[in-house]
């Protein structure tokens, strides 16, 4: 599948969405010369959930990390192409990667709360970014409410260690931590892969709730999850974008044969 064909697979209906909040154009990423993402062009629309699916090692995480410059920390990584966020090229020389990460939140595959209290986990990000101390209690409470965790910890558990929470609660704490920064765009890399079905469905419910105010990109291995929660789906294989379109279309009437085979579970 070459690249222009991949572009043709982008469904025509997307134009109804207006300008994308993030636009990746012709993105190439390689690790020490080994290509991981190959010429991906992909729009991310505001207040929508976009899922990125594809077989293991196809470059989903790599692509996602390039959206908030988390790849910068990996030794030997090189990148070409443009990623425009609200019209600004994230890789322009005058763009500070720290500022990029302040504005674009990220939730990781394994819950990674700081070994501190629940309160501090949420308050730390805003605090280092100059958020006023008086409003902090409200901000923490709001963030926990948005992440549907407040009810479970409001009874005096705020000062407990975050490590005492269950895995699912920890992951919602990490979501709350990202929300406290009031990002417009949140990147999630398989946020449910280490969670049980109940915690997973709680987080999926949460995603529906969050999409009213945030834009979400989620990498997932779970076809049902992608079909359930996302508005748009991007299918990657060997670093190439094979198909991108509305989720309903990608799952029911995929343009590409590989996509069809993948979403119906015949490989991957």
């Amino acid at each position, binding site marked *: 599948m070459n690249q222009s064909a991949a572009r043709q697979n982008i469904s025509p209906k997307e134009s109804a969405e207006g300008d994308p909040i993030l636009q990746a154009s012709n993105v190439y990423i390689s690790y020490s010369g080994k290509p991981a993402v190959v010429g991906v062009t992909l729009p991310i629309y505001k207040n929508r959930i976009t899922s990125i699916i594809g077989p293991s090692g196809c470059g989903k995480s790599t692509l996602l990390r390039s959206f908030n410059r988390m790849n910068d920390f990996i030794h030997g990584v090189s990148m070409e192409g443009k990623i425009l966020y609200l019209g600004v090229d994230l890789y322009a020389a005058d763009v500070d990667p720290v500022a990029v990460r302040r504005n674009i939140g*990220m939730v990781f595959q394994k819950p990674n709360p700081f070994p501190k209290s629940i309160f501090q986990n949420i308050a730390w990000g805003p605090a280092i970014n100059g958020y006023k101390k008086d409003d902090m209690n409200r901000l923490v409470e709001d963030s926990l409410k948005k992440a549907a965790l407040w009810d479970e910890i409001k009874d005096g558990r705020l000062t407990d260690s975050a490590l005492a929470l269950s895995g699912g609660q920890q992951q919602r704490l990490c979501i709350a931590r990202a929300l406290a920064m009031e990002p417009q765009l949140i990147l999630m890399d398989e946020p449910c892969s280490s969670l049980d079905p109940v915690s997973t469905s709680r987080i999926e419910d949460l995603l529906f709730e969050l999409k009213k105010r945030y834009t979400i990109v989620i990498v997932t291995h779970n076809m049902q999850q992608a079909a359930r929660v996302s508005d748009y789906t991007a299918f990657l294989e060997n670093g190439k974008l094979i198909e991108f379109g509305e989720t309903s279309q990608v799952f029911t009437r995929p343009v590409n044969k590989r996509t069809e085979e993948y979403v119906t579970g015949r490989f991957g």
Partner: protein
Amino acid sequence: MNEVGNLPRRRLKAKLFHLFCAFVTFMGVAFLVILLFHIWKEGHHWVDWQFLNSFPSRFVEKAGIKSALWGTIWLVGLTAAISIPVGVAAAIYMEEYASKGKLNTFIEINIQNLAGVPSIVYGILGLAIFVRWFNLERSVLAGSLTMSLLILPIIIIASRESIRAVPSSIRQGSFALGATRWQTVRAHVLPAALPGILTGLILALSRAIGETAPLVMIGALAYVAFVPEGPMDSFTALPIQIFNWASRPQEKFHQLAAGGILVLLAVLLMMNAIAIIIRQRAERKMK
């Protein structure tokens, strides 16, 4: 099912190994206890306020350890003040900032080698650089700088290892919130690495307390009848004083040496206790 056949033999082996380990551990502890008991028996009746508060003397009854004790306190204090910031900062730089290239590996191997260099070599180095070249004479500062060189590799290696043990997922979480590298190190990496760093510091400073050869080399005095009042004063230290007493022919001075060893051990234990308390606080905070 094949396994059941040799299960009793494997059990026996496990049991024997268990006994062997227990025996070896016991032997180590037993020797230590015998040694300590011997020293205690020899020296404990010499250790009193007069002993701690008197300068050395030709007369056993009047002799005390004041100058050596204060010399050691000065020496360790200055050494800590010099080597801890430098060592921890070097470890942070190498783990968190420097690019993990060939140069970094080269430096790492060199530091590991430096940790194995005999202490007398550091003494010669200290004599050439600090005493002669920097003109610091036989001061406690020259001694501390020399000791700092000696223990820096230990501090750097231990600090690096505990910094490296901090899971990278914590760093990533911090960076993803728009933290700078320094904010990440300050708020997450250092607190998480602190228990391990402290263990390294205890080991390093304990070594500094016990070292004699480099001090002899840079010319710490054997007979000092005053307490250092500044970093430029000359000094003696507990191990030197102990050696001095132990090498005299009179039996009574040998007992004084044992008393000196008890004081040295007490200082060591006190330092370790403080470090352990700080470490436990840090660990409790992490949970």
